């Protein structure tokens, strides 16, 4: 309710995650989440790369106040990124509430989000405003409905930089037009194991879509998690872009299911052994690196989907992908940790979470 008077403590969030990791929604065995973001800029202001300190401060204030006035959700809180330390910023990146660029940026900038963490609004990122909606499962249409609504509310308060020819004007011409990037996060372990993933990439790229790792542009793929998103933002309407992505996802998910079936048919024992070994490792290991845990969680997640492992909830596994990341572990411990310390705490944390079951 109160936008600024009750500053949120980041540590309050450390032991849970946003609703998008619940593991619900359509095709949620393979589709982890659906995400849409819109890039918007305020008219009559330079983009951030050419804005001076005074303009940046002014922009931050305007956009922050307008977000507040727009009454997007009743529980929206705002964090000024200049007020928090780098571990806390990393923590917000890991939760997909801000981007890496936003975390590493300079000057007045911030983020607003509600308790469910479904909607987040980044102020002074690459553009003056980036609106984001993430939902659990394959729910792009629903995400569009939500974000369109948020955008309409804000548009009543703010005059966006817009031209009838080029649409919403953005700092980078790769975002101009709709300013929309829609993406779907997929878990594709069997296609990875059977080396069919390249075929998927080629098919996807032919449609003008791109495949990225867990944290977007330039990030490595780990835990067999892939993000598929549109590259073009101009010349097609938002529903058209969403439709293109929506048309390709069921083909990929059925391909993944086929690959899983084939693995079971050809080498059930081997597959089961791999999955149970990964599960065992998570339950007993004393040190686990961030790379290793992604791999182990990926195997166990597939095991749960295939009914090989029955006693773990999908929500728990989805959450562990995020809660065991460096920023989260450090926030949970309340201190800075080096890589070796993190590996020990990570293993202990996972053991504890799996014992609770």
């Amino acid at each position, binding site marked *: 309710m109160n936008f600024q008077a009750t500053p949120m403590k980041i540590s309050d969030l450390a032991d849970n995650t946003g609703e998008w990791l619940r593991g619900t929604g359509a095709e949620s065995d393979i589709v982890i989440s659906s995400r849409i973001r819109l890039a918007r*800029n305020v*008219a*009559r*202001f*330079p*983009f951030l*790369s*050419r804005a001076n300190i005074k303009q940046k401060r002014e922009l931050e204030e305007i956009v922050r106040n307008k977000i507040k006035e727009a009454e997007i959700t009743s529980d929206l809180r705002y964090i000024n990124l200049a007020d928090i330390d780098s571990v806390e910023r990393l923590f917000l990146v890991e939760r997909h509430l801000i981007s890496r660029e936003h975390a590493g940026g300079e000057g007045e900038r911030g983020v607003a989000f509600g308790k469910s963490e479904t909607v987040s609004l980044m102020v002074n990122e*690459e553009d003056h405003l980036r609106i984001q909606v993430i939902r659990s499962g394959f729910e792009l249409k629903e995400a569009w409905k939500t974000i*369109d609504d948020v*955008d*309409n509310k804000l*548009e*009543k308060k703010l*005059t*966006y*930089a*817009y*031209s*009838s*020819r*080029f*649409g*919403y*004007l*953005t*700092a*980078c*011409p*790769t975002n*101009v*037009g*709709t300013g*929309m990037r829609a993406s779907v996060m997929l878990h594709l372990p069997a296609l990875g194991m059977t080396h069919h993933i390249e075929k998927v990439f080629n098919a996807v790229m032919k449609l*003008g879509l791109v495949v990225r790792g867990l944290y977007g542009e330039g990030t490595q793929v780990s835990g067999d998690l892939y993000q598929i998103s549109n*590259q*073009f*933002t*101009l*010349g*097609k*309407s*938002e529903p058209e872009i969403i439709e293109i992505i929506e048309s390709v996802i069921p083909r990929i998910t059925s391909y993944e299911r086929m690959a899983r079936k084939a693995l079971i048919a050809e080498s059930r024992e081997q597959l089961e052994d791999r999955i149970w070994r990964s599960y065992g490792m998570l339950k007993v290991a004393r040190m686990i690196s961030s790379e290793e845990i992604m791999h182990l969680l990926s195997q166990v997640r597939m095991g749960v989907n295939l009914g090989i492992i029955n006693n773990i909830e999908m929500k728990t596994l989805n959450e562990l992908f995020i809660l065991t990341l460096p920023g989260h572990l450090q926030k949970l411990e309340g201190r800075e940790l080096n890589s070796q310390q993190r590996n020990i705490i990570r293993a202990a944390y996972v053991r504890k979470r799996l014992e609770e079951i």
Partner: protein
Amino acid sequence: MKCESCNKKHATVHLTEIVGTTKKERHLCEECAQGINTQLAKVPSPTEILTSLINQVAPEINEMSKIVCPVCGLSYLEFRSNGRLGCPMDYTIFRKGLIPLLEKMHGSTQHVGKVPSKAGKELIKKNELMQLRNELNKAVEKEDYEKAAELRDRIYELSGDTNED
């Protein structure tokens, strides 16, 4: 024969230039020929080599290189080197250079998506019409005439134009 360069003096120098597979003869007076000679003898500077390279890859850069946005002070060359624009006005100022770039990136240079309600109802209508026309073209391509007729009716309805042309 008159010099083909100045068209005044008598041509006394006859040059044969071979570019690729075509042969070109030039007839010049002494004075003009000297100008050509010094040009030929001159070794191109790194800047010239660079400019010619840029011209081959992106010919618009040379033409646009002197343009600076009066609003934010960004030059077109700065934009090309870091990929970020400085202000909304740049889309107008650098339009000529941006259009081929946008075409390459998006396969289009015309927005057909959402229109802010502040941008006016007219604009919304204009965009909707444009999108319907796109869909109509697609329907015709696919020989889906039923859909095409339906789209055509909607276009007429929106534009208030019932002329069959």
